């Protein structure tokens, strides 16, 4: 480990002289041009916009804050800047000194007929070094058929190659053999610990406020870390700084609104949005259930002090509440806040400083004079991120930084809420951790065809006090748990430190103008662990830090891909194969008690997992018909000592074949038709394989873990979007989305259970010893209508 540290330190310490050399002697006749690329209509920065200098055959793209910087030899050049869905522009640059230039692009929707559209190639997928990444088209998501008419980015994430759904209709997703807790879901850089409403049926993201969504499945750059399998980076709009604008929708399940506008034109802006479900209104009068709803809200303020300093403050708040008659109340939710400062130290050194707070909690109340209780649990984290990008020259872009995070884990507290409650005030031991990450990475172009992206991330994770760590007679015995000793740690006292180095390497070789080959290797480390034995997303989950009984999870992944575009980039095709092997994964011993257990340390077991697969992706970008097809063949096995007789078994989310077809046909400016079809092989499940007698009573006995597979899921959804013809004098634009979910009404399996055989009225058939298996399906055919407005 010391050897690695020395290499990193040498690299970091050696970097400044290198920069000095680059800035003075080697490039004396070179100048830097930098600035932002924005949407002409609303002033939003455009992420990933391309700037291309055809005379030099050199270019760059804007970063996630819309910023670009490139250093070129002195001279006059043509510059083409472009972005998908926007009209490309061309201008001439006379580079005789350092320049700061901001560009604004008109969207295709607002372009005038007499302007000529640049015919540059939209071949970013071929050119860029990044692989195993999917960028989601939020506008297309809004037009696709959705469950209850509620557009949901996570449902589209599930259709990407390499991504598997937990169960039909739910928002949980599994990436390349990783479990759900191995996905880092970010909203404006703040982690969201439970990204779903209604027990996973809908995501917490309001489609109206999303600006950009990227999913990294492999080849993950060094600035990301903390989870093994994926990064879902969701960024919200900054707010329109040109004029007041808004949008909203009234759907079958929920309604939403978004309002944005300038605080000071071209300088500062705001955005607020809200969403509220109203299933509870339909349930009024129902004796059994009288309240069930969710809400969420986003707010953001954005201030451009000048070209060198920009400030953002963003908030997200979301909550689900279920009130069960007069008996109980259950709620859970997330709160995140992000304060961000973009600063330009000089023409080539871009800085992003971020303060983050994120909180997830759930609570349960039972209103009962005897069994009354209030149960609360949660997790909070506060983080500081300092990210720097140094645009050395057109062939090198260096990124480095530090991320520090403090986490507080509160696994549970029970408090009696009635005078005669049988429960006593009980607090499970809280846990604390301090997480440091230092990273450095460079994207380097070598010759015309080869580009490398390489980096290192150093993770130092400290499990801290105050805490009591118990010693068990047998840490592998979760039946007769016996504590034999305990050690008390004071506040800020380090219990155990885990240090890991994460190398990341990606390479792109340009075969020709239309195709490239890419390869990547990355190691990821995860120091927080979700203690859940559920397959579907449930908010009752407990997170724990790496600790004396729980080592960090590690994953190594290699991927190889071929990328090819056809018909002047009308079609994008890619295929990737990957192999991922993971260590120290947690799983539970058979017959584990996960809930409100202060001795979870003896319940989980650690093991390994191997996952490999083939992914195919075809996307049509242009024309009236747009869409994509994705297919994944994958296999994920686990081997955990003490589970399943220490034999290998399929992971809960191991599905062999996954096919998604998504398409939108813009028939005319009034009607757009969309549809998607999904097919997923059945997921594994543990079912009884027989019965036997014990004291005259029949008990089930179980075979191997996940030995049985549910039937496959397949479903067709259709939608039609009606946009009444525009009245050019009218500011308000409206549209109707008519959707049908599960068009051919297939009973897709959610789970299977066995019960004593009975008729439809619940009367037991026979002598009560006969059993039957029942398959549970969640969603039959579901039509919905959504009315959208925009101004």
């Amino acid at each position, binding site marked *: 480990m010391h050897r690695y540290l020395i290499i990193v330190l040498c690299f970091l310490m050696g970097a400044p002289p290198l920069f000095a050399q680059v800035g003075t002697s080697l490039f004396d006749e070179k100048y830097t041009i930098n600035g932002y690329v924005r949407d002409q209509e609303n002033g939003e920065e455009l992420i990933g916009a391309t700037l291309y200098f055809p005379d030099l055959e050199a270019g760059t793209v804007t970063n996630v804050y819309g910023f670009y910087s490139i250093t070129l030899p002195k001279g006059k050049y043509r510059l083409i800047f472009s972005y998908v869905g926007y009209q490309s522009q061309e201008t001439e640059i006379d580079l005789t000194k350092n320049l700061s230039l901001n560009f604004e692009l008109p969207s295709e929707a607002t372009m005038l007929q007499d302007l000529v559209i640049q015919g540059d190639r939209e071949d970013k997928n071929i050119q860029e070094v990044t692989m195993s990444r999917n960028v989601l088209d939020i506008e297309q998501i809004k037009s696709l058929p959705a469950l209850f008419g509620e557009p949901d980015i996570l449902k589209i994430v599930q259709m990407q190659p390499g991504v598997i759904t937990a169960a039909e209709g739910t928002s949980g997703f599994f990436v390349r053999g990783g479990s759900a807790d191995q996905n880092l879901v970010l909203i404006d850089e703040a982690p969201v610990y439970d990204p779903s409403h*209604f027990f996973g049926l809908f995501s917490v993201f309001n489609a109206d406020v999303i600006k950009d969504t990227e999913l990294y499945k492999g080849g993950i750059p060094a600035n990301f870390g903390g989870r093994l399998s994926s990064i879902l980076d969701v960024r919200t709009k900054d707010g329109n700084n040109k004029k007041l604008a808004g949008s909203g929708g009234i759907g079958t399940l929920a309604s939403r609104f978004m309002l944005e506008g300038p605080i000071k034109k071209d300088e500062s802006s705001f955005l607020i949005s809200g969403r509220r479900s109203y299933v509870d209104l339909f349930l009024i009068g129902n004796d059994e*259930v009288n309240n*069930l709803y969710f809400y969420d809200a986003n707010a953001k303020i954005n201030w451009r002090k000048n070209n060198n300093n920009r400030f953002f403050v963003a908030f997200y708040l979301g909550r689900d509440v*279920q009130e*069960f008659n007069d*008996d*109980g109340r*259950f709620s859970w939710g997330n709160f995140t806040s992000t304060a961000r400062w973009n600063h330009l130290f000089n023409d080539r050194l871009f800085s992003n400083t971020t303060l983050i707070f994120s909180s997830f909690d759930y609570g*349960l109340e*039972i209103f*009962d004079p005897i*069994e009354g209780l209030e149960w609360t649990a949660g997790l909070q984290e506060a983080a500081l991120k300092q990210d720097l990008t140094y645009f050395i020259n057109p062939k090198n872009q260096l990124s480095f930084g530090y991320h520090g995070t403090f986490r507080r884990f509160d696994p549970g507290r029970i408090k009696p809420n009635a005078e005669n409650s049988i429960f006593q005030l009980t607090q499970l031991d809280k846990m604390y951790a301090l997480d440091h990450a230092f990273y450095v990475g460079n994207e380097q172009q070598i010759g015309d065809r080869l580009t490398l992206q390489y980096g290192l991330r150093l993770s130092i994770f400290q499990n801290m006090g105050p805490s009591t760590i118990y010693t068990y007679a047998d840490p592998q015995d979760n*039946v*007769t748990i*016996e504590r034999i000793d305990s050690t008390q740690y004071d506040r800020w006292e380090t219990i155990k430190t885990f240090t890991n180095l994460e190398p990341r390497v990606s390479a792109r070789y340009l075969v020709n103008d239309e195709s490239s080959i890419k390869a990547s290797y990355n190691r990821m480390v995860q120091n927080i662990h979700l203690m859940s*034995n*559920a397959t579907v997303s449930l908010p*009752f989950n407990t997170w724990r830090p790496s600790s004396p009984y729980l080592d960090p999870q590690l994953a190594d992944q290699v991927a190889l891909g071929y990328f090819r575009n056809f018909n002047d980039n009308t079609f994008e095709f890619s295929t990737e194969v990957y192999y991922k092997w993971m260590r120290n994964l947690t799983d*539970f*011993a*058979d*017959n*584990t*008690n996960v809930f409100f257990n202060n001795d979870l340390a003896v319940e989980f077991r650690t093991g390994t997992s191997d996952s490999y697969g083939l992914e195919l992706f075809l996307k049509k970008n242009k024309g009236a018909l747009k869409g994509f097809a994705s297919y994944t063949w994958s296999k994920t096995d686990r081997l955990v000592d003490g589970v399943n007789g220490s034999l290998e078994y399929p992971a809960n989310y191991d599905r062999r074949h996954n096919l998604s077809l998504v398409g939108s046909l813009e028939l005319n400016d009034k009607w757009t038709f969309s549809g998607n079809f999904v097919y997923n092989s059945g997921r594994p499940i*543990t*079912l*009884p*394989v*027989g*019965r*036997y*007698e*014990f*004291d*005259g*009573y*029949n*008990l*089930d*006995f*179980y*075979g191997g*873990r996940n*030995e049985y597979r549910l039937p496959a899921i397949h479903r067709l959804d259709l939608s039609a979007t009606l946009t009444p013809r525009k009245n050019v004098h009218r500011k308000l634009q409206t549209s109707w989305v008519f959707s049908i979910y599960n068009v051919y009404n297939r*009973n897709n399996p*959610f789970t*299977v259970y*066995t019960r004593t*055989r009975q008729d439809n009225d619940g009367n037991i058939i*026979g002598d009560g*010893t*006969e*059993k*039957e*298996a*029942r*398959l*549970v*399906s*969640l969603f039959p055919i579901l039509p919905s209508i959504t009315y959208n407005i925009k101004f």
Partner: protein
Amino acid sequence: MRWILIITLICLLACKRDLGDDLPTPVLRLVVHGWVTDQIGPYTVTLQSTGGVLGSPQIFNIGNAEVKVVDNFGTVYDFLEVEPGIYQSGIEFQGQIGAHYFLEVIIGDGRRYRSAVEPLLPVAPIEAITCAAALGANEQPGFNLGLEFIDPPIVQNQYRWITYINGEAQNRPLQMRLGNDKLTDGDRQLVDLGFYPLQAGDRVVVEQRSLSEPSFDYLSLLITQAQGLGNTFSPNPGLVVGNMYNVDDPNEVVLGNFGASAASTIQLIK
């Protein structure tokens, strides 16, 4: 735990249908249950196969086996088949506190099975049985039964309590009761035996049995699985394996358990 019902809200939209026979093929295993106590015998060992999951289980009994219990002095006690699959000891065999026993079974095809060695541990006497009027599910009138005893200090003790109503053991999963003195060593113990809709004249007998630690673990898992599966909070289901094994093929999965207990009883006539 009525709050679990909250989770069932998700089922508002759910539809359910029979899966028919589309379930795993039943796996046949040998199931051995045997218990020796310090009470007067005869003791019983049952040999059965596992049955199918769906419909009637079609469990069949395994006859013509050679069954014997051996104690730590080398004394062999033969069990004779009195009904198909049911084997009983002779009247000369009565378990002794402090002795150790194991079970050996040879079935018709020659396969040989043996249990781990089980100690017959002493058990404390029951001091009192309690009976309090209560209302059960759907306001059904009845009684909450309980018992009291003093746990012997210093030594580790595991218990099982079996309630008999008019001679019939109440062994449904929710009626099974186990306990240990891990947190209450040497204290007076109050055991909740559960609700029973007793009638006047009903005869209640409660038996308190000592258990070895492995047998306690086995029964704990069995009861957890029998009581707990089927809801969101269920533990991961798994194979519950007792202390029987195939002498020649340790990888063969054998279900059931052989145990030894001292027993104390108390009686109540309602």
